[in-house]
């Protein structure tokens, strides 16, 4: 049995001579325990990498003199797997009796570094931290106390989001009776000046925080020269522990003309607002900036290599957010890889991709990933293992392959979020100086994307949940929030609850729509605490809010079961708006493609059919069999629809039917093929005397899988409609049990229903 005695704390006050023989004796017997099957993929990568790199000399530094080889007893090689080391070894690390300038030297005063330093200092450690001089744009030589989050990330980004959101609010306000003599104009320089003043204030606050905690702040570039020594611009400081929290920086690909491109650092501090900007990348940074510039009335094109934005997020969220962003005027170019940037004589930029060239950009921004700032830190020289992308490899306690060197935050490329860096920093301080082995807990870490509309998520995606849990129930809601019913804007809200069918536990929650990040925080507490769907159900709603929808989801949209006969594979969706209009005894369908990620040149052939009591309803003779749905590139502000198709059916003789089934799919595929078939049931008007109701832009994204679930004969509206007097009644109700089945009322009306087609 692997037992250790952990005896080490407060190295400042307690002389380490008492390190007991027990501990020393125990050391040799400590074999690397079996690989910890941590769920964290990063850790697995680390162990793999290290397995491939057998021992190499511990320290190649010229300052080997100071290198405390004594740290690693000869029978306990330092070169070993990083996984599953006991944090108690931190104690042995301090068995060194030598005097150091500091107990902890932190390189990098960003979120993780500041937190770790402060906490270590409150535990009584003598701490120094170094940071580069302040600049809004980072480089090898510039940074600033506060780090990415405060100076080039979360904070300035959100300030710009706030600013850009106003244009949407101005639009909304019109529906609420507000009128403008002239359209509001935006002055970029005011915004940037106020933003920078705020950043200066914040960096000052961070400096104060450090000072108040008794941490010595040294300005300059830190470089590790041996496992206990940091060199700052020629001056050396020794420390018992070194913490690397240098963060990351945007990474631009090496293509011709890349010198004309900007990264997110620069985008947050441009001298003038872009007129027309290309944003390359489909990650959260790209989407956030697309929202910012679109809100500030720049023309925005987003180029994505993949088919969809936000790889790694829940599929439905990926579809929903890009659709909503398209409706706000952002143009997406999918599966386009940038190849070169060309500057023309008039100064404008062109972006050449594998599919063509788009001209006339004032700015081209790359949001194609970030890289850890680990170059030229001396890490490799002292034996700290790095991953290929430069990330510092660490164990679960954030310790690197060198015992006295630790790393937290983006430099380790685990979950690159400020609150996670804070957690890692806090856990590090507790482990090393607080006498409490603490691993950061990466379960149910919530996160947000401040796109417009924003996303909030916690826990597993649907795909992950199906893989990990097997039997999963999915509850979704796609509705028009109350505010949108008055504003008349096409804003919607999407929510999804993923529940393990066996344990009833809520595995994941995904929201996209206004206030999502704020809504998800409380939900994250519930998910983290392992609450069940039943717990959600017994919670009373707050009326009228959007969030109440999360506690009023009664019937699953779809179910996944391990039983192969019921198993379904997640598929790709395409969205259409279907507008059904009763004109006398005919029913007419307009289908509008509103799928945002459609390339200019793509086209579909679609076929409609209507079924009544299992029989196909004949189409009037004069109607052609299929009408092509031509897709025109979505022009800015010419929103909502990319194409339109109209077909009519003769409904004479079936006016009293209970329901109809519409089918809708690519013309080429056989109608019986379930691989593409969409189906939904719609109410239709039976009485020709009833006047047409005004179009209510109701749309619902019933899941593709619903029609395959056993749920077919549900003929009752969803219970949720009642609570959600916020509008969007059809979608939340009628389409909800979607797939097959809803009773129809002989009431007149026009309505739309959004249809999903899957391939």
């Amino acid at each position: 049995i692997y037992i250790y005695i952990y005896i080490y704390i407060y190295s400042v006050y307690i002389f380490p001579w008492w390190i007991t023989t027990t501990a020393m004796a125990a050391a040799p017997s400590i074999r690397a325990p079996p690989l910890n099957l941590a769920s964290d993929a990063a850790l697995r990568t680390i162990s793999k990498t290290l397995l491939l790199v057998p021992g190499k000399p511990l320290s190649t530094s010229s300052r080997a003199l100071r290198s405390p080889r004594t740290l690693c007893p000869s029978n306990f090689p330092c070169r070993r797997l990083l996984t599953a080391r006991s944090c108690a070894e931190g104690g042995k690390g301090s068995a060194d009796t030598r005097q150091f300038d500091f107990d902890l030297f932190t390189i990098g005063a960003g979120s993780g570094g500041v937190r770790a330093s402060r906490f270590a200092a409150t535990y009584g450690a003598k701490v120094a931290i170094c940071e580069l001089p302040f600049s809004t744009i980072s480089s090898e030589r510039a940074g600033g106390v506060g780090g990415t989050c405060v100076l080039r990330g979360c904070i300035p980004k959100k300030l710009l989001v706030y600013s850009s959101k106003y244009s949407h609010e101005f639009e909304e306000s019109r529906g609420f009776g507000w009128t403008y003599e002239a359209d509001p104009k935006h002055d970029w320089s005011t915004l940037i000046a106020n933003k920078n003043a705020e950043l200066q204030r914040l960096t000052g606050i961070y400096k104060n925080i450090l000072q108040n905690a008794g941490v010595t702040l040294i300005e300059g570039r830190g470089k590790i020269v041996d496992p206990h020594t940091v060199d700052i611009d020629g001056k050396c400081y020794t420390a018992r522990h070194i913490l690397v929290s240098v963060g990351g920086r945007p990474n631009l690909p090496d293509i011709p003309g890349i010198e004309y491109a900007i990264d997110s650092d620069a985008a947050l501090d441009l001298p003038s607002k872009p007129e027309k900007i290309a944003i390359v990348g489909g990650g959260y940074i790209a989407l956030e900036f697309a929202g910012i510039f679109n809100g500030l009335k720049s023309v925005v094109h987003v180029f994505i290599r993949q088919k969809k934005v936000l790889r790694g997020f829940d599929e439905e969220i990926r579809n929903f957010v890009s659709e909503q962003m398209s409706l706000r005027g952002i143009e997406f170019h999918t599966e386009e890889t940038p190849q070169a940037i060309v500057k023309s004589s008039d100064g404008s930029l062109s972006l050449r991709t594998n599919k063509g060239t788009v001209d006339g950009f004032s700015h081209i921004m790359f949001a194609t990933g970030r890289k850890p700032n680990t170059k030229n830190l001396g890490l490799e020289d002292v034996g700290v293992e790095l991953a290929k992308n430069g990330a510092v490899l660490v164990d679960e306690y954030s310790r690197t392959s060198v015992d006295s060197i630790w790393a937290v935050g983006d430099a380790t490329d685990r979950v690159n979020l400020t609150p996670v860096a804070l957690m890692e920093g806090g856990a590090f301080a507790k482990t090393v100086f607080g006498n409490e082995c603490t691993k950061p807990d990466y379960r149910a870490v919530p996160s947000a994307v401040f796109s417009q509309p924003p996303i909030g998520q916690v826990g597993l995606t649907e795909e992950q949940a199906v893989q990990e849990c097997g039997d999963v129930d999915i509850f979704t809601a796609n509705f028009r929030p109350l505010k949108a019913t008055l504003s008349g804007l096409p804003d919607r809200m999407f929510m999804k609850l993923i529940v393990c069918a066996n344990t009833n536990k809520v595995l994941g929650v995904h929201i996209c729509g206004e206030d999502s990040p704020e809504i998800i925080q409380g939900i994250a507490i519930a998910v983290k605490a392992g609450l069940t769907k039943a717990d959600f159900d017994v919670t009373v709603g707050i009326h009228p809010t959007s969030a109440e929808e999360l506690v009023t989801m009664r019937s699953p949209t779809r179910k996944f079961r391990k039983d192969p006969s019921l198993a379904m594979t997640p598929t790709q969706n395409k969205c259409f708006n279907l507008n059904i209009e009763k004109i006398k005894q005919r029913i007419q369908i307009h289908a509008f493609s509103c799928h945002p990620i459609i390339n200019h040149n793509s086209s579909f052939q679609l076929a409609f059919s209507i079924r009544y009591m299992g029989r196909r309803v004949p189409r009037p003779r004069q109607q052609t069999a299929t009408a092509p749905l031509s897709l025109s590139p979505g022009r800015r502000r010419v929103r909502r629809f990319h194409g339109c198709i109209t077909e009519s059916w003769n409904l004479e003789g079936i006016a009293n039917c209970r329901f109809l089934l519409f089918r809708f799919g690519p013309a080429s595929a056989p109608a019986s093929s379930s691989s593409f078939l969409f189906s939904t049931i719609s109410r239709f008007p039976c009485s020709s005397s009833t006047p047409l109701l005004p179009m209510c832009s109701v749309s619902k994204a019933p899941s593709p899988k619903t029609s395959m679930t056993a749920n077919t004969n549900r003929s009752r509206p969803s219970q949720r409609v009642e609570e959600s007097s916020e509008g969007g009644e059809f979608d939340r109700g009628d389409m909800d049990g979607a797939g097959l089945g809803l009773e129809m009322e002989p009431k007149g009306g026009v309505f739309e229903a959004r249809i999903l087609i899957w391939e």
Partner: protein
Amino acid sequence: MARKMLIDGELGQTAADEKQYDFDLFVIGAGSGGVRASRTSAAFGAKVAICELPFHPISSEVIGGVGGTCVIRGCVPKKILVYAAQFRGEFEDSRNFGWELSDEIGFNWKKLLHNKTQEIIRLNGIYKRLLSNAGVTMFEGEGKLIDAHSVEVTQPDGTEKQYSAKHILIATGSRAQLVNIPGKELAITSDEALSLDELPKRAVILGGGYIAVEFASIWRGMGAEVDLFYRKELPLRGFDDEMRVVVAKNLEGRGIRLHPGTNLTELRQSEDGIRVLTDHGDEFTTDVVLFATGRLPNTKRLNLQAVGVEVDKTGVIKVDEYSCTTVPNIWAVGDVTNRINLTPVALMEGTCFSKTVFGGQPTKPDYINVPCAVFCIPPLSVVGLNEQQALEQTKSDILVYTSSFNPMKNTISGRQEKTTMKLVVDAETDKVLGASMCGPDAPEIMQGIAVALKCGATKAQFDSTVGIHPSAAEEFVTMRSITRRVAAGTKLKTNL
């Protein structure tokens, strides 16, 4: 479809007692509670009828509308007006974010009113459809009890029809009341306030409850001069005192004049408006006087006493835990029972009623940890116990965590308004007993917190949750240091 066998809650009944009734359930009042109960009962297989007064935005003895207070004269129209009013603050805030707005931004009250009415008519239609889709028979007219199994409906044309039912559910809700002072006929209630022809330039509001503060925020946001009068030292009696202070401060910060400890004594029509006299001897002239001084249940014309349904002095129907009145087959849910007067609670009561009576699962509504929100600007939202209640109801010490911070948006906008959050924790069990927040998005944030509280989340579980950065809500999971520890049994001063 063959009707399902009724599973009746009353087990003692024998088949011999079974009479033929027109309906299994007759519901009087198609508001939140009534509609929910009808639909869920119908889903259990019951034959259900519901009656409701004709539709109109302003309610009276003979006017109401399917959807009830929430949809027509409450939550929904109120929130629409709050949205409209919030924009003023947004305009002010946007300037420091670089937006250049002309000084004169117009506000067209009529347009808003039109759009609001359209939306409410739409919702009214939806509710009607919901009922008919559920197979519920609808009658338009005023319902009245004849005996324990009969309801008489007086239709708008004056004809009367009688229906028999095995069970009767009263869900007639409540109506705003005017305080009895000279000139009270010059005052309006929240019903009229939601549908005024003209937007007032000056408004006087009497009352310190949530309706009063919400209308104060609405009118102020639309540009009116607002004077708010209430009897206590602070508005929002019943809420956490600390939060009440915050709300009062915010209202003042947004330009509403507060008159605590003041009552109105008389209203007089004058040339330039309504003259308002207070018990402090002050006089104000205003365009509109809103009385937001409470609501009374709509039970007067139901003929309740005649059939033996007991009501209290104010007309509230007395019910047991299952919402059953003193007559075993007559039930009541929603505001008419004056338990917790919130839409989601009425929905819960309605569902529990159906389950009990037609679902074969006797179910009590659960009133613990019901969250609620006050949509003043900025809003207040709470769940669980406030500090005072926590001290009364728990034996151990109470840990109070508070946080008052400048929301990030205000760092640029320059708005001087702090967001305040509070957690009340049981020192012994570590359970979070109550949470409150006053600040932008509070109601949306509180919903998730309510889920956590409902199942007894501990402070440790709050702490172990990673924050969402940068958000306001993350403050709830990063409250590390105790603001104060209050010893068990401490009495807080409650004369506010």
